[in-house]
């Protein structure tokens, strides 16, 4: 067993072995006491009883009668193989009895003792009581223990064999146990090494619903989240690289053109001013893309706090009312029913701003825009309804793609990001953006689930495993990849997706 000391499996197995050994020893001890011990105590009691009986009879009899009694006792045939009786004279000679010689005299009166003696030429162990009968005469009542010794030997051997077998089983079991643990942990470690060396799509095998299965599941959830974030980061960089190249090229060519063709300071100044405006627009675009990418990918921390959608709706309607007025559009907040929920105030406000922006821009002069906040049992929604031309049904499922613009709106200023931002923000809140035909006009409904304060720290898995559909037109699946204008799809430019479903 290599690395025995540091292996937790070995340590567990060893402590389990020690426990088993303690149990086996206890069991053996009890068994030994209950067999051999009980037998020996029975013999002791018997010796004491016979001795007491003979001593008592000596009080009333004379010595020769005692000798007769002894001879009778020995001759009765009962226990004659094991029984030992001796009457010793003051000089230590055997007066009567079934041993030829007795050597131990220094034993106190009436106590049990064990000694060796010779009987018919054989050395035997004797358990006996020696009683002093007065005048130097002693009585020895005892028993040959040979048989008991044999039994004791048998029991001991049985226990020893049992212990060896138990030890072997424990040792074998420990090795097996350790191998099992090693195998299960080994799988996890191997997978971890593969992931470490770059294959982030690998997942722990989940063998069952035991501790290791659950550990593997937890690790898998963590890996899902990490992979999702990694994809998010990759997605952010890809989109930025792609989407900013076009406007940068435009600014660069404007400046280059000015450098080569402008002949006076005024023309250069104009070119610089144009370029500065272009760069400012670019920065705004950049911030929006970053916001979409951050919210879509879940890279942004979900710092949810209590939000009041009524207040957000009021703020935004009051922010946009002057613009609406200027465009000849009526803007009204018609319904306030916002139940408190948890969310990101700034993101929700900017989502509503984008919706208002969209409606004011496309609904047209004379249109009416109604904003309402509605709530049901488990969600709160902000509804923006206009009676403008709406979005053609064929295009309604594409307008949330980045840079997608409805044909007839291309002449209007805009960058095609507004609804994409709203959809991303909805997804970020585990909600959705529903666009439908208000007949006439567009009905946009931003739905976010109602969260209790306690659930504000929604587990990351909630967003990680939520379907990535940012919004849903009735019964239509969302196209999985936003079309990248101008190609460059090979850069992996697209919505971040989970690489595998989560079990």
């Amino acid at each position, binding site marked *: 067993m290599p690395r025995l000391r540091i292996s937790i499996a070995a340590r567990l197995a060893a402590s389990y072995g020690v426990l088993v050994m303690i149990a086996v020893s206890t069991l053996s001890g009890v068994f030994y006491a209950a067999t051999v011990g009980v037998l020996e105590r029975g013999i002791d009691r018997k010796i004491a009883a016979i001795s007491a009986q003979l001593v008592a009879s000596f009080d009333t009899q004379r010595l020769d009668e005692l000798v007769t009694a002894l001879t009778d006792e020995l001759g009765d045939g009962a226990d004659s193989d094991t029984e030992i009786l001796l009457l010793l004279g003051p000089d230590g000679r055997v007066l009567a009895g079934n041993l030829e010689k007795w050597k131990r005299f220094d034993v106190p009166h009436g106590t049990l003792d064990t000694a060796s003696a010779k009987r018919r030429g054989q050395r035997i162990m004797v358990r006996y009581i020696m009683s002093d009968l007065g005048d130097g005469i002693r009585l020895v009542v005892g028993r040959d223990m040979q048989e008991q010794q044999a039994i004791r030997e048998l029991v001991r051997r049985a226990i020893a064999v049992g212990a060896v077998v138990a030890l072997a089983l424990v040792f074998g079991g420990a090795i097996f146990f350790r191998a099992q643990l090693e195998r299960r942990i080994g799988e996890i470690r191997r997978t971890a090494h593969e992931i470490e060396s770059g294959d982030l799509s690998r997942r722990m095998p989940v063998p069952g619903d035991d501790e290791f299965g659950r550990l593997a599941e937890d690790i898998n959830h963590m890996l899902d989240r990490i992979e999702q974030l990694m994809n998010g980061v990759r997605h952010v960089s890809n989109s930025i690289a792609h989407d900013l190249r076009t406007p940068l090229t435009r600014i660069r060519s404007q400046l280059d053109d000015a450098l080569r063709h402008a002949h006076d300071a005024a023309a250069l100044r104009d070119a610089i001013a144009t370029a500065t405006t272009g760069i400012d627009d670019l920065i705004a675009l950049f911030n929006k893309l970053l916001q979409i990418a*951050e919210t879509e990918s879940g890279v*942004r*921390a979900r710092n949810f706090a209590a939000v009041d959608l009524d207040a957000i709706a009021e703020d935004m309607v009051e*922010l946009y009312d002057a613009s609406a007025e200027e465009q000849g559009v009526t803007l009204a907040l018609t319904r306030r029913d916002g139940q408190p929920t948890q969310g990101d105030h700034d993101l929700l*406000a*900017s989502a509503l701003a984008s919706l208002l*922006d969209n409606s004011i821009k496309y609904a047209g002069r004379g249109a009416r825009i109604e904003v309402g906040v509605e709530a049901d049992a488990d969600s709160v929604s902000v509804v923006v309804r206009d009676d403008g031309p709406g979005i053609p049904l064929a295009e309604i499922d594409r307008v949330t793609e980045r840079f997608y613009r409805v044909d007839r709106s291309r002449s209007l200023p805009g960058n095609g990001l507004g609804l994409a931002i709203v959809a991303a923000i909805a997804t970020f809140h585990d909600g959705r953006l529903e666009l439908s035909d208000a007949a006439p006009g567009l009905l946009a409904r931003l739905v976010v689930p109602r969260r209790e304060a306690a659930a504000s720290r929604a587990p990351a898995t909630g967003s990680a495993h939520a379907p990535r559909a940012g919004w849903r037109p009735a019964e239509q699946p969302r196209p999985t990849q936003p079309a990248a204008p101008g190609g460059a799809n090979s850069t992996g430019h697209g919505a971040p997706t989970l690489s595998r479903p989560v079990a």
Partner: protein
Amino acid sequence: MKCLVIEDDCSTAEYICNGLREAGHAVQLCQSGLEGQSCAVGEDWDVVILDRMLPGGIDGLSIVERMRELDKATPVVVVSALTAIDERVRGLRAGGDDYLSKPFAFSELMARIEALARRAARQPEHRWLRVADLVFDLQARRVTRSGSEIPLQPRELRLLEYLMRHEGQLVTRSMLLEGVWDCHFEPQTNVVNMQISRLRSKLDRGHAPPLIHTVRGAGYRFGPDA
């Protein structure tokens, strides 16, 4: 004003320092976190402009935190390339008074610095705000010009109050969005322009001189003089 600029990027630092000097302020520049920290806590400044990410082991936020620990109330504008909203919140929580994300226009920075300096030297609360013949009764939330009342919606009142409190200063669109509508993002269309022109038409109708002046490419200035 005595301004301390802590910024490691040479061209950004030059841009800020030149602008401040042109506006007539004294400027000292520190280009590392350590130097910046000793300057910021060692001397008295009217305003500190600092970058968040600095070389030298000490970042911008820890400088602000250190200043606040030492009870230095100098207004601090944090300038950073970290734009996410939670980064802004972190910057303000650390003790910054304002947060500006890079890249920015110098006029935006200057406007915010002036607003902060004004706030640091704020006068006790008055019941009235008065600019030329325009009077804002803060308790009754009523506005009169030359004695005649101008009816305004609640949000227009807030916008006007913000402008009057920053009289004579450049006020940028994003300052108004933050201060009046609690809006920490850039809406797509120019909603602030629309709000301002509506307010302007209400204030200036039949009165002279005009009070709200547009500063091209930067923002607005409120006051009787252009």
